C-alpha cells in the first residue's frame, strides 16, 4: 500500500503524569477483577438472576464494540467508497478498534461464569448456530485477529526502522552479570529486523483481503448484537423489541463509528497539540446525517407499524429514555446539516458527542433500561462493577497513548501540509487559539 510515510510517531515522553493516573485506575480495576475470580461474580457485582447481564455486557461489549467501530466505518469509507483522502486517519481508527475489541473480549472473560469452558467455541460438535451469541463470539474473535493483522504494518515498519535504543538502554541498565552479550543481542535483533522487513511487503500485498474481512465481520456481528435481544420478547419493552433490532444495531454502529472517528481525532489533536484535521472531519461529518436519517426513519416507521408511537410519547420512564436517545441523535444530526458547523472543530465536537451519546444510550436502553424481567428485580451497577469497567476503559486510553508514541499511527502532518499550501499549515500549527483551519480544497487525490 506504500503509505508508510503517511504516518508518524508522536514525539514526546511516554511516562507522563496522566500515564500514572490512568495506570492507578487500571490497577484498581484489576484488583476487583482479582476479587471476582476468588469470591465469585456476586461478590463484586449487583447482577442477579433477573438481570444476569450488567454493565460489563451492556457497556464493555454491546456499547464498547460500537464505539470501537471507528476502524470499520473509516475502512468502508476509504476502501469501499474509494475516498483515499481519509487514508491517513485509518491507523488511529484501527488502533482504537483493536483496543476496543480486545478489551471487550477481556471483559467477557471477566463476565463469563465458567471461562475455562470457553474452548467449546472451537469444537464443532458443540456449535449451536441458532444462538446469536455463538455468531457474535466467533465474529468478534475473528475480527480482533483481523484488527491485529491490519495494525501489524505499523509495528513492522517501526521494527524495520528501529535502532533498538530502548533495548540497549535496558541492557545497559541490567547488571553486567545477567545482561546478554552485546554482540549476540545485536545479531538477534538484526534477525528480527530482517524478518520484519521480509514480512512487511508480503503482508501489504494480501492486506486488502483482511481489510475487507474486517468490513464483513463487523457487519455480521454488529447486527447480531441486536439479534441477541430478539428472544427476550416478554422482557424487553415494546419500544425497543422489534424484528428490526439487527438492522438498527448495524446502522447504529456505523454512525457511532464515524462520530467516534471525529471525536477521537479532535481529542487527540487537542491533547497532543497537533493541528485539527478539519477537512477530513467535515467530510466525515457530512456522511453521518445520511446514516442517522435512515436509522431514525426505521425507528419511527417501525414504531408506527407496531402502534407504539403513543408509548413513545407517553411521558413515563421508558418514553423518557426513548426520547432522550432519539433527540440526542436527531439534534446532533441536525447540527451536521449546517455546512458552517461542519467546518468548526467546536460544533463538530458537540454534534459528534451528542450522536455518540444517543447511539450508546440506544444500546443501553435495549440491554438494560428497557429490559424488565418482572416485578421485584432491580439493577444498578455496584462500585466494584463500575471500577472494573472504568479500569478497562483506562487501559484502552493508556494503550492508545503508548502505541501512538511507539508506532507510526497518527497522520504525518508535515506531509499533509506539503499537500496543501505550505504557509497555511505552518501558520496554524503554532496558533492554538484558532481551532478552525480554513476550508481548503479537497485533497489532491
Amino acid at each position, binding site marked *: 500500500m506504500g503509505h508508510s510515510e503517511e504516518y508518524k510517531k508522536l514525539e514526546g515522553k511516554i511516562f507522563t503524569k496522566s500515564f500514572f493516573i490512568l495506570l492507578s485506575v487500571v490497577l484498581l480495576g484489576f484488583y476487583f477483577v482479582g476479587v471476582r475470580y476468588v469470591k465469585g461474580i*456476586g461478590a463484586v457485582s449487583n447482577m442477579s438472576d433477573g438481570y444476569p*447481564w450488567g454493565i460489563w455486557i451492556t457497556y464493555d461489549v454491546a456499547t464498547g464494540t460500537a464505539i470501537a467501530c471507528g476502524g470499520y466505518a473509516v475502512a*468502508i469509507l476509504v476502501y469501499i*467508497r474509494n475516498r*483515499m483522502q481519509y487514508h491517513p486517519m485509518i491507523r488511529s481508527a484501527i488502533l482504537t478498534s483493536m483496543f476496543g475489541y480486545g478489551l471487550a473480549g477481556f471483559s467477557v472473560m471477566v463476565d463469563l461464569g465458567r471461562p475455562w469452558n470457553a474452548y467449546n467455541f472451537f469444537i464443532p*460438535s458443540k456449535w449451536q448456530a441458532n444462538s446469536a451469541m455463538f455468531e457474535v463470539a466467533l465474529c468478534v474473535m475473528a475480527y480482533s485477529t483481523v484488527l491485529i493483522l491490519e495494525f501489524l504494518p505499523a509495528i513492522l515498519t517501526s521494527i524495520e526502522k528501529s535502532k533498538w535504543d530502548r533495548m540497549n538502554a535496558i541492557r545497559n541498565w541490567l547488571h553486567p552479570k545477567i545482561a546478554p552479550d552485546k554482540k549476540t543481542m545485536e545479531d538477534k535483533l538484526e534477525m528480527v529486523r530482517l524478518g520484519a522487513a521480509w514480512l512487511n511487503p508480503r503482508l501489504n500485498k494480501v492486506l486488502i483481503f483482511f481489510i475487507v474481512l474486517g468490513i*464483513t465481520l463487523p457487519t455480521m456481528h454488529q447486527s447480531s448484537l441486536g439479534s441477541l435481544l430478539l428472544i427476550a420478547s416478554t422482557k424487553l419493552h415494546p419500544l425497543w423489541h*422489534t424484528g428490526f433490532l439487527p438492522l438498527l444495531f448495524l446502522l447504529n454502529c456505523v454512525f457511532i463509528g464515524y462520530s467516534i472517528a471525529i471525536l477521537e481525532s479532535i481529542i487527540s489533536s487537542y491533547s497532543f497539540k497537533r493541528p485539527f484535521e478539519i477537512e477530513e472531519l467535515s467530510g466525515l461529518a457530512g456522511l453521518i446525517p*445520511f446514516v442517522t436519517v435512515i436509522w431514525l426513519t426505521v425507528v419511527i416507521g417501525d414504531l408506527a407499524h407496531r402502534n407504539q408511537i403513543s408509548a413513545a410519547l407517553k411521558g413515563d420512564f421508558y418514553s423518557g429514555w426513548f426520547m432522550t436517545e432519539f433527540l440526542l441523535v436527531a439534534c446532533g444530526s441536525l447540527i451536521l446539516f449546517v455546512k458552517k458547523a461542519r467546518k468548526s472543530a467546536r460544533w463538530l465536537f458537540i454534534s459528534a458527542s451528542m450522536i455518540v451519546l444517543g447511539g450508546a444510550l440506544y444500546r443501553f436502553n435495549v440491554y438494560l433500561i428497557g429490559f424488565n424481567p418482572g416485578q421485584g428485580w432491580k439493577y444498578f451497577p455496584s462500585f466494584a462493577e463500575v471500577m472494573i469497567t472504568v479500569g478497562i476503559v483506562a487501559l484502552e486510553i493508556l494503550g492508545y497513548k503508548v502505541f501512538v508514541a511507539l508506532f507510526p499511527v497518527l497522520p504525518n502532518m508535515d506531509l499533509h501540509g506539503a499537500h496543501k499550501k505550505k504557509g497555511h499549515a505552518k501558520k496554524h500549527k503554532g496558533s492554538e487559539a484558532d481551532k478552525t483551519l480554513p476550508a481548503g480544497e479537497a485533497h489532491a487525490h
Partner: protein
Amino acid sequence: MKKTSRRDFLKLAGATGAGLLACGAGNALANEGLQVNNDELGMLYDATKCVGCKACMSACKRVNSDYGSLSYEKAKFDEDGLWDAPSDLSGSTRTLIKLFKESEKRWSYVKYSCMHCQKPSCVSVCPVSAMTKEKVSGIVDYNKNTCIGCRYCQIACPYNIPKFQWEKAVPQIVKCDLCKATNLREKGITACAETCPAGAIKFGKRKDLLEEAHQRLKDAPDKYVAHVYGEHEGGGTNHLYLASMPFNKLGLPEIKPEAPAEFSEKIQHTIYKGFIAPVALYSTLCFIAVKNMKKHQGHDDDHQKGGK
C-alpha cells in the same frame, strides 16, 4: 463530488438495508413450524390441591443436592443454620412453593420450577449446547461441563427459571431436570411428584396430563380458571398448571402461543441461511476494494511521474 458520494452512499446503505429489511419483516418464508410432541414427560401441578407443605422442595434438595450442587439456604433470622428458607428459586433451589394471598379468604399456593418448554428459549440461545432438550423424554437438561456461564439462558427464559450461583468462584446454572440422573432414573418418577402427600403434582406423559387437566376442568368448572397454563404458552410447555386464580396473579407471565425462539430463530436463519449472505457480502466488497486500490495505485504512479 458531493452528489456522487451521496448517491454511492445511499446505494450501499440501500443494499445492506434492503437485505436486512427482508429478514426484519420476519416473513413466514422460513417458518418450519413447531411440532408439539405430546409423548414427552412432564408434570401437572394443581394449585387447588396443594396444601403448601413444601415437602416437594425438601425432597428435591435431598435427592439432587449432590448432583446439582444445591446447598441449603439459611434464613436471615436463623443464626444456628437450622432452617432452609429460600424466598425464591436460586442457585440452591430448583423448585419452590409460594403462597399468593389476595385476601383472608382468597389465596393460592403456586409451585415454581422449570417449565420444560416444547421449544425452549434457553436451548435456542445457548452458544455451546450446554442446554439441551432430550429427543424422547423432552427433558430440558443442563451440562455444567460444557457451560461457559454466559447466562444468556437467563436472559432468554420468559419464566425466569435458570438460576446462577452468584456467590461461587466455580458457579453453574441451576434448574430442574425432572430428576433425570437421580430419582427418575432410579424410580421412574420425579422426587417432588413422588413425595407430594396431597396429590397436587402428577407426573407422566404430556398427552395424559392434558387429558387429565381438561377432565378436571370439566368435572369442576367452578373450582378452576378455565385454562390449562402451559398448553399453548410460548409454544407449549411440559409442565402444566391448573389454578383457581388468574395465572398472572400467581407470577406466571402471559405469553403468546408463538415460542419466542421461533421468532428470533426465523430472523437469524434468514440472515445466515447457508452462509450465502456473508459470503456474497465479502466477495462483493473484495471486488470493489481491489478495483479501488488499483485505480488509486494508477493515480499514484501518475503523480510520481508528473512530479519527476
